[in-house]
Each structure stands twice: as structure tokens, then as C-alpha cells.
């Protein structure tokens, strides 16, 4: 039995949801996303903050670290497709 490896396997797909009006542009999500999926956008919410937006959607694993860090409950990650190619 070959030792399991991730080299060829599919990484779980995830998606980020953003509640724009709650965001206060603290930047935690952008900083602590392990795969740098996010960046602060140049758009404004009604309070004048720059909410984050997804710049590398393909890199999101849905780990929800952005959600854990967000002090405003304005972003969260969700696993969208099941993890494929895990242990044989």
C-alpha cells in the first residue's frame, strides 16, 4: 500500500461569504488567511470601510480562519465540495 500523499489529490474547495455592511476593515481576515485568498477592496460599505474581497478563489479551502478571526462576524468560509482523494 503506497504511503498516502497529497501530491495528486484534490484540495477541498471552499468559498468565502462576506457581510459587507458589518465589516470595519480591520484586515485580520486578509492577514491570517493561510493561502492569501483575500485583499481589502477599494469599494466602500455604507460606513466608509473597505471590505475584503476574494482575489484567489481557487486557493480557498473553506477552513473559516477568516471567520474565526473576524471581530465583526462579517466573513466566513464554507467547505463547498467534499474532500476528494483523501486516504486510499
Amino acid at each position, binding site marked *: 500500500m503506497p504511503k498516502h500523499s497529497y501530491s495528486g489529490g484534490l484540495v477541498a474547495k471552499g*468559498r468565502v*461569504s462576506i*457581510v459587507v*455592511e*458589518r465589516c*470595519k*476593515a*480591520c*484586515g*485580520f481576515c486578509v*492577514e*491570517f488567511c493561510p493561502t492569501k485568498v483575500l485583499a481589502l477592496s477599494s469599494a466602500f460599505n455604507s*460606513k466608509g*470601510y473597505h471590505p475584503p474581497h476574494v482575489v484567489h478563489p481557487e486557493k480557498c479551502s473553506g477552513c*473559516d*480562519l477568516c*471567520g*474565526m*478571526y*473576524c*471581530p*465583526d*462576524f*462579517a466573513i*466566513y468560509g*464554507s467547505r*463547498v465540495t467534499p474532500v476528494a482523494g483523501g486516504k486510499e
Partner: protein
Amino acid sequence: MSDLVNPVEQFLRSDRMPHIWCPGCGIGTTVNCFAQALIESKVDLESLAVVSGIGCTGRVAGYVKLDSFHTTHGRAIPFATGLKLANPKLNVVVYSGDGDLSAIGGNHLIHAARRNIDLKVICVNNLIYAMTGGQTAPTTPDHAITSTNPYGVFEPSFNLPHLVEAAGAVYVARWTTFHVRQLARSISEAFKKKGFSFIEVISPCPTLYQRRNKLGDGLDTMKYYKEKSKTRHGAPTSEVGLTMTGEIIVGKFVDRDRPDYQTMMRGQMTESLGDKFAEQAEMVCS
């Protein structure tokens, strides 16, 4: 895409969002960890109650969709004591700030720890009185500038883990708002403990503490936590004091077992009164 739901949302009073905490303040982050712990440890939400005092963290009670009580300044712990004693089946969490718990509420903090009342205390320590505009707290590190120490704090500050361990707490841990997974796990561990658990969470207060002391904003502070924190489980609490820019020792410092208040009460009453001791009837006054 609308079917995707924030796992934390179920615990929030969404109709009260957005909340009042400042950009980069860490209180909301601690609420995420609290929510995560509720999910992980499958706490029965029906019997969970959150009690907060006054201050920025005091507003947590108003934002969580649970039986929640926003009490008076410093008196969350005695209120929670009454709540727990009247209905021992309740899981009572005290969620408040460093000023509320260790300054005006300090007397109740040490007595509840001494009695080992079964309470889970989450103390969000932003090192200052934030709600009232950035005054010195018992936890404000030396030389910090505050609105009431404009020339620099000179009073020594409390080392909260050391204080509550000495007073008798059975579980003492400290994390920062950077340590989201560890904090969630710590809160879950506290839910499994019976007795007085105390979790200190160092949190940025960008608007008052960091700004007045030129320590950058919330994100800079989180990076400082990431860089300068050191996990030392079981570290002697006497060694975990804080300074303004120095090392931050985090981890689970104390995890011991000691009968909680009601167990001790029941034991003593049964010993003295035998079967004459009437176990507290279900509190029904209707």
C-alpha cells in the same frame, strides 16, 4: 450561495448587528472562539446563561442569542453565583473585561475562586478601561499612557492568572485573540471542568490603548501577539506577568481538581443533617 451560513450566526442576535466594538478590537474574535467551543463541546444551549458586567466586553451579553444578563459594573460574578446556586443545572458563563472583573469586581473574583463556584469566566483583557475612554486599569502595564495616567502608569499591575490561581481557581489559562483555535479549545476544556475556571484573553484596544501608546492598530497588535507570544503550558503563574511590549506567556497554566461549592455544600449538609437535608427542590415558585 445564500445557503452558506456562518457557523457563529446561530449564537448571535443578528438583529443587533453591526455591533459597537471598534475596528480591530478583539472582543468579537473571542465571541467566535466562544461560539466554536459551544459547537465543539455540544453545550446544551437551553441551559446556558451568559452574564456580563459593564464595559466593552460587558456588551457581549447583549449580542449573544442566549439567556443573557447585562449586570452592574463588577458584579457579574456575584449575579452569576446566585443564578448558578438557584438552578444548579444551568451552565453559567461570566463574560467580562479586565477592569470589570479585577478592579471594581476584584473582591468578588477572588471570593468566587476561593469558594470554587462552578462558573466559566472569560476575561477579555485589553489592559485598559476602554468603554469610558481609556483610563488606567489594574492590568495596565507600567509606563503606559492612559487618560488618567497622562504621564505614564507607575502602579504595578495585576498578573491575573497568578491572582486567580492563588485564590483557588481550578482551571486557569491565557490566550490572545491571535490564538483562535487554542482559545476555542480552552473554552471547551473549561466547559468540562466543574468549578471556577478562568480564561484570560489578551485583546487589542486600538482606539485607546494602542493608539495612545503608539503601538499601531489592531492588526499590528495581532502581529505582535503572533510574534511575541510563547506557549508554556503549566508555566508557574508567578512568571506570566505582562509588560507593554515584552513577551506574552500563553497556555493552560492550571488544571486541577477540587470539589466545587455545591458539592462541598451538599457533602457538609448530608454529613450534618443526614436524610433531614432536603436536596434543593426544583426552583419552581409558581
